[in-house]
């Protein structure tokens, strides 16, 4: 175990650990891509990485800046068209995990990447939009979300539902006929949240080492529920940190 690491490094490592070997993962760019590539190096060599540019089974030697960097195509098992990646691979539920980021996230795991502010036509901030996320959130077996925790990002109710999580609670996905389980894990720089089995409300289940519960509560824009058996995430190992730092440098 190491004590010399940053909160961001802990977040990437915790997110990477969530991906098990042998699964397939639809990867968003940024933090999800970093975590997925770390997982492949650390403990999940047979993790299949799928990027929406059409790269299936990409094995990049360095972190791509975009989802369509040449490195992803050059190392992929197959490169297919964009209609194909969404229609043949994502839509029928062939992909185990969707790994997404968010600008805003609410207590039921609904994601906003569209606008900040209540007026869509006159937004406070115009964000990039949906990309592949709505269908990734709908159709992957489960969804992991990774983002830094702050009251601005973790809000009671998102300003815009770009990608559906658990709606307004347990059972909403089933009512809408959404095939996947939706968000099952949120990884932040402070800890981990999971949906409550009864209500689907995101509940703090683990804190990263050295993080006070009060910090996590303050960084959440709703009254954060805390699991009875709140655990502490194992600190990064030397090996995990070395691999992450090599990946970031490469």
């Amino acid at each position, binding site marked *: 175990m190491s004590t010399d690491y940053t909160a961001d490094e802990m977040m990437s490592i915790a997110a990477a650990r969530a991906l098990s070997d042998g699964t397939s993962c639809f990867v968003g*760019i*940024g933090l999800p891509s970093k975590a997925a590539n770390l997982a492949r190096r650390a403990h999940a060599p047979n993790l299949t990485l799928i990027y*929406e*540019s*059409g*790269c299936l089974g990409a094995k990049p030697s360095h972190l*791509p*800046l*975009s*989802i*369509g*960097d*040449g490195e*992803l*195509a*050059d190392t992929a098992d197959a*490169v297919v*068209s*964009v*209609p194909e990646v*969404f*229609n043949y691979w*994502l*839509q029928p539920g062939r992909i185990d995990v969707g790994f997404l980021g968010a600008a805003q996230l609410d207590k039921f795991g609904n994601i906003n990447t*569209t606008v900040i502010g209540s007026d*869509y036509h*006159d*937004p406070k*901030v*115009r*964000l*990039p*939009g*949906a*990309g*592949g*996320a*709505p*269908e990734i959130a*709908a*159709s992957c077996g489960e969804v992991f979300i990774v983002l830094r925790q702050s009251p601005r990002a973790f809000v009671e109710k998102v300003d*815009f*539902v*770009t*990608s*559906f999580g658990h*709606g307004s609670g347990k059972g*909403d*996905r089933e009512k*809408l*006929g*959404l*095939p996947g389980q939706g968000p099952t894990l949120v990884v932040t720089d402070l800890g981990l949240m999971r949906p409550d089995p009864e209500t689907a409300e995101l509940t703090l289940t683990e804190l990263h080492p050295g993080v006070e519960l009060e910090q996590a509560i303050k960084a959440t824009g709703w009254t954060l529920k805390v699991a009875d058996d709140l655990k502490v995430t194992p600190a990064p190992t030397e090996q995990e940190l070395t691999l992450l730092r090599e990946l970031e440098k490469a």
Partner: protein
Amino acid sequence: MAELLSLEEAVGRLVHDGDTVALEGFTHLIPVAAGQEIIRQGRRGLTLVRMTPDIVYDQLIGAGCASKLIFSWGGNPGVGSLHRFRDAVQHDWPVPLEIEEHSHAGMANRYVAGASGLPFAVLRGYTGTDLPAQTDTIKPITCPFTGERLTAVPALNPDVTIVHAQRADRQGNVQMWGITGVQKEAVLAAKRSIVTVEEIVDELEPRPGAVVLPAWVVTAVAEVPGGAKPSYAAGYYERDNSAYQAWDEVGRDREEFTKWLNELTGVKA
């Protein structure tokens, strides 16, 4: 049969004010030089279509060429926001920009319908999201066989689609490989098309997995070496990630952008 034209001539003849124009290329093979030629020729009132309006659309929007954008993700991939796009949406600068917003799956299927000669496409998408409430071109539809509620999106048939590819022969047959995104669908869906290529060769050498657009579906081919920079052309040059990062500085500020624009169009400050 495709005509071999200069870029200036192709854009001059085939892209008109008020047209619906798609420049496609999914990170790879983005027709940047063609977009900048549209800016130089001062087109106005365009409806721009593109899944991922990246920096070339930031430039077109900032230059005031567009009155509407149909898109699914408007950012500078891996870097951050498109500031000219944001400025147009949030502050109508330099002109108001209407938006029609989709997901990637929706856009890809709209091109598929367009290429297939069908009025709409169907997908299991958008369910539970706020997108259908803001976008008239997303509607529910019931499967006539199973009764399942699905989503219909109308075909996209641009007046002109512009893509970049690695090679063409002298007849105008086009070959592209690597990440080919929605380029084939976007060309087949369009009324007219321009393909800029790295080089024109006597004979296309077969390449595994390559997409060939036969000359009879392409209106014009223009040889523009480096025409995708700072994006990339597999087999020719790599993505210039630093240029994408540097654009953030230029795009962020109206004055910086205007300087950049004046340089592109040859206007003396």
